[in-house]
């Protein structure tokens, strides 16, 4: 027990988030659910960057928000720093929120257009009343602006006067203001230009090293995830299909979905699409009616009859590498590569 | 002009006349597309790549925008000389465009079939029944599953990938000679993106079209473009072969872009950052627009803007580094 608390900052046990689908007017038929997150188990180690990749509908954003209790989980437990926070009320969560923050994707919607930068950055401190004098507040804001590469003479400007990259820096400064231990980064660079992305990625990595942060990095961009993460989780339709250290997962992917994902990335100076490339057929199924058995079997190039009615278990294939695939559990690791 | 050239843009200049001043959004844009080839246009937001496409289609919102000068030769004829009526016959018919956001580009209250029909009935004068048959044929061509069923469905009933196929179907309905794709896969998942890019490539060969692919994704360009032009601040800064540009980028901006993209072997090192910011096109500029951010900047770069110079047979670059004056 003591070992876990020291090692893992956040533990999610069988987290589920099901959104009820609105019934038609007469309320006929059984209640359907969008199974956004359908049984996720992860342990995030202190000081690590855990990347989560997946395509739309895989539930990665929902998972990030659920872990922060911005969305109430339908089932499962969340343990933060040894404390079970699943059933805590908003009032009791104050301490947790002090330590767990979030950075959003959209630099335009994540800042209140009617507030000046200093108020935006200081807001978490205002809410949690974590300073005593105005001077303290102001000097903390300036410190954060400098850390995030923002010019302090713009301290009383409005968000619309900044570029996308600068707004994202404001968002990061805001997330850092309470000195949190854990930050969920929900696609923080996806909405930015390529040349700006590198600046923000560098900033995040610098800040993580400086403040010894634990990051949950959600993205659909595999190259960015590869660059910044220590370990990577691959999600599909609300479930985790593969988990491993970054190098391992990119060099030796096991799950057919992970392989397909990696193959689909257009590479600079890489393979030529003009030669017919095996791409994944079909579209992602709806999370309201996920396929039975293994949810990937409808598109899986190596699916067998069994896959449509047996749900795969998440197994350890050695080298801290976990996969959720029946064919892996049926064969020896060596034969299945 | 070559018989093989489908589109030739010469010194295109598009301005926006705003309260704050004149924004010179496109300046001295010249390039060509041959028959049957894919030209990639790469750049970041605000560089003018979408505006170039809109200018060719003469869809620039006027006011405040205006194509101030230049020539756009399509199949030998200058499009800028054509009347509005004549342009309407060309749009959707000979030149077609696929946009980035399939949800906002499709009319949510009309069925998919109706929207594809429209182009056929307007440009080809087909009857309702004939248009329906051709539409289903086209849906099959874009690999839409269950085309007869989809014909009667509405955009919101389809996934992002399927909607983009509908957009492509609409664009290809009249067998255009030039297909302009403005960030067609940016809003799509990676696996769907691969399908759509393959589809565009296959259809290009089948229908004997040329494709103008606008994107900020260097990987996409690398995979499917025959030739590439790089745009920065409303100007073309480099023009090259699809392969050479990545093996040996000429313009410092291209070089910087390639360096700042995370790749497999840059793990956990600091990524390259281009210092400075994109220039405000409202301000008056002296010298090369990339100079303030350029590693190689010399005095002469700040005096006058460089011209697009020929580097080799099929490569052009707008940079003094490759001019005679550089070594002086």
């Amino acid at each position, binding site marked *: 027990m003591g070992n876990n608390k020291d090692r893992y900052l956040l533990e999610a046990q069988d987290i589920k988030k099901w959104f009820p689908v609105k019934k038609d007017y007469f309320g006929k038929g059984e209640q359907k659910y969008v199974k956004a997150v359908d049984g996720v188990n992860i342990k995030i180690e202190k000081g690590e960057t855990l990347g989560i990749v997946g395509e739309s509908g895989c539930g990665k954003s929902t998972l990030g*928000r659920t872990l*922060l209790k*911005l969305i109430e989980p339908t089932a499962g437990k969340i343990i933060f720093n040894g404390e079970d926070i699943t059933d805590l009320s*908003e009032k009791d*969560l*104050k301490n947790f*929120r*002090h330590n*767990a*923050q*979030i950075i*959003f*994707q*959209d630099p*335009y*919607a*994540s*800042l*209140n*257009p*009617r*507030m*000046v930068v200093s108020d*935006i950055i200081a*807001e*978490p401190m205002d*809410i*949690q009343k974590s300073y005593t004098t*105005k*001077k303290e507040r*102001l*000097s903390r804001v*300036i410190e954060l602006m400098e850390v995030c590469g923002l010019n*302090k*003479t*713009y*301290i*009383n*400007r*409005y968000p*619309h*006067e900044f570029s996308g990259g600068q707004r994202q820096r404001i*968002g990061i400064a*805001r997330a850092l203001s*309470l000195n949190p231990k854990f930050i969920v980064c929900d696609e923080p660079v996806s909405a930015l230009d390529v040349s700006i992305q590198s600046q923000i990625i560098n900033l995040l990595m610098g800040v993580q090293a400086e403040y010894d942060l634990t990051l949950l990095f959600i993205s659909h961009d595999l190259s960015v995830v590869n660059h910044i993460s220590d370990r990577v989780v691959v999600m599909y339709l609300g479930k985790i299909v593969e988990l491993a250290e970054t190098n391992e997962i990119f060099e030796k992917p096991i799950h057919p979905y992970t392989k397909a994902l990696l193959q689909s990335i257009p590479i600079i100076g890489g393979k030529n699409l003009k030669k017919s490339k095996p791409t994944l057929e079909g579209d992602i199924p709806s999370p309201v009616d996920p396929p039975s058995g293994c949810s990937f079997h409808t598109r899986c190039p190596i699916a067998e009859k069994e896959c449509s009615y047996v749900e795969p278990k998440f197994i350890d294939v050695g080298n801290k590498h976990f996969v959720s695939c029946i064919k892996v559990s049926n064969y020896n690791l060596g034969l299945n590569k | 002009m070559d018989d093989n050239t489908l589109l030739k843009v010469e010194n295109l200049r598009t301005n926006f006349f705003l309260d704050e001043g004149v924004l010179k959004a496109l300046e001295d844009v010249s390039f060509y597309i041959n028959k049957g080839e894919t030209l990639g246009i790469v750049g970041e937001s605000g560089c003018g790549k979408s505006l170039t496409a809109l200018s060719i289609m003469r869809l620039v919102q006027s006011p405040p925008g205006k194509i101030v000068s230049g020539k756009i030769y399509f199949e030998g004829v200058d499009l800028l000389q054509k009347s509005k009526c004549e342009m309407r016959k060309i749009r959707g018919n000979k030149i077609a465009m696929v946009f980035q956001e399939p949800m906002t580009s499709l009319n949510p209250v009309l069925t998919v079939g109706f929207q594809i029909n429209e182009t056929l009935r307007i440009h080809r004068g087909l009857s309702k029944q004939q248009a329906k048959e051709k539409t289903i044929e086209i849906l099959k061509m874009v690999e839409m599953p269950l085309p007869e069923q989809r014909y009667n469905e509405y955009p919101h009933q389809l996934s992002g990938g399927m909607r983009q196929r509908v957009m492509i179907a609409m664009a290809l309905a009249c067998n255009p000679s030039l297909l302009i794709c403005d960030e067609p896969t940016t809003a799509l998942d990676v696996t769907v993106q691969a399908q759509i890019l393959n589809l565009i490539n296959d259809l290009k060969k089948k229908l004997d079209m040329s494709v103008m692919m606008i994107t900020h994704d260097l990987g996409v360009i690398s995979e499917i473009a025959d030739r590439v032009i790089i745009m920065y601040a409303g100007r073309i800064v480099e023009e090259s072969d699809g392969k050479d540009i990545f093996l040996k980028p000429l313009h410092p901006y291209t070089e910087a872009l390639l360096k700042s993209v995370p790749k497999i072997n840059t793990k956990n090192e600091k990524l390259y950052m281009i210092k400075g910011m994109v220039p405000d096109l409202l301000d008056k500029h002296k010298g090369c627009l990339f100079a303030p951010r350029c590693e190689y900047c010399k005095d002469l770069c700040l005096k006058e803007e460089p011209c697009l110079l020929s580097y080799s047979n099929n490569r052009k670059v707008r940079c003094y580094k490759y001019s005679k004056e550089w070594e002086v």
Partner: protein
Amino acid sequence: MKITDILFRNNKIYEELGIDDKLSSTGLYSDAWKRLKKNKAAMLSLVIIIALVFVAIFADFISPYSPEEQDLRNKLQGPSSEHLLGTDHLGRDILSRIIYGSRVSLSVGIVAESIAVVIGIIMGTMAGFYGGKVDYLISILIEVFASFPFILFAIAVMFVLGPGITNVFIAIGVIGWTTLARTVRGQVIQLKEKEYIEAAKASSSSSIRTIIKHIIPNCLSTIIVIVTLHIPGDIMTEATLSFLGLGVQPPMPSWGEMINNSRKFMRQAPTYSLFPGIAIMLTVLSFNTLGDGLRDALDPRLKNL
């Protein structure tokens, strides 16, 4: 920056910390003001409204006669050198009565709308923010109040509270909040999804704090426009009520009441009803034009630049 911040700014702290901050020249309102200035019709309307307020405040000094001074020998006169706009059926100077009548019209606009705004914002934000059962109940309330026949309600209020101008305020305010509530509710539902609201929640912001600090300031533009466009309606409503004898009671002058009285004397003094009618029309037109101008100037499309 907000005016309060500029006024009460503690410059010392900025000096101590060595910041030379450049105050923003483009806040939402300063941009909107620049845009509004270009709209000539709206600016003209603004001038007229300001003039009207001026007239209402300084009526005592501007008005040539007392509005209640009767001169039965000179009743129902047309415009003359002594009485610029003529006299009414009791010999009172019409111009003076119009001047004092502006007080009634403007105060109806301000007070009634204030009541409506307070109720409307509270209801709209509660319904939009909390959703669920709260939204359900408030929406029913909105529908009930909105469908209620207004005149009936006004009569009921008069019956209970007696006639008089305060009751006009109450009647108009208590019925008039529904449009505002509906619109605010719609806006709040949209705003709720914005990420900066989630960010506030991520720092443990209470619902009330989120509503006051984040939601309402972002609804203000809409509220301003709606209020400006409602004022003319309120003025007309007061005119109608006074016309029906349910509003302002004599001898207090009100434009609607003047029109009411002038009905009987149309043939003898055709100009009697003309001038109060023009006054109403001019006021209503000005508010409508200003409201349209404000809506264009505060256009949210441009907020996201």
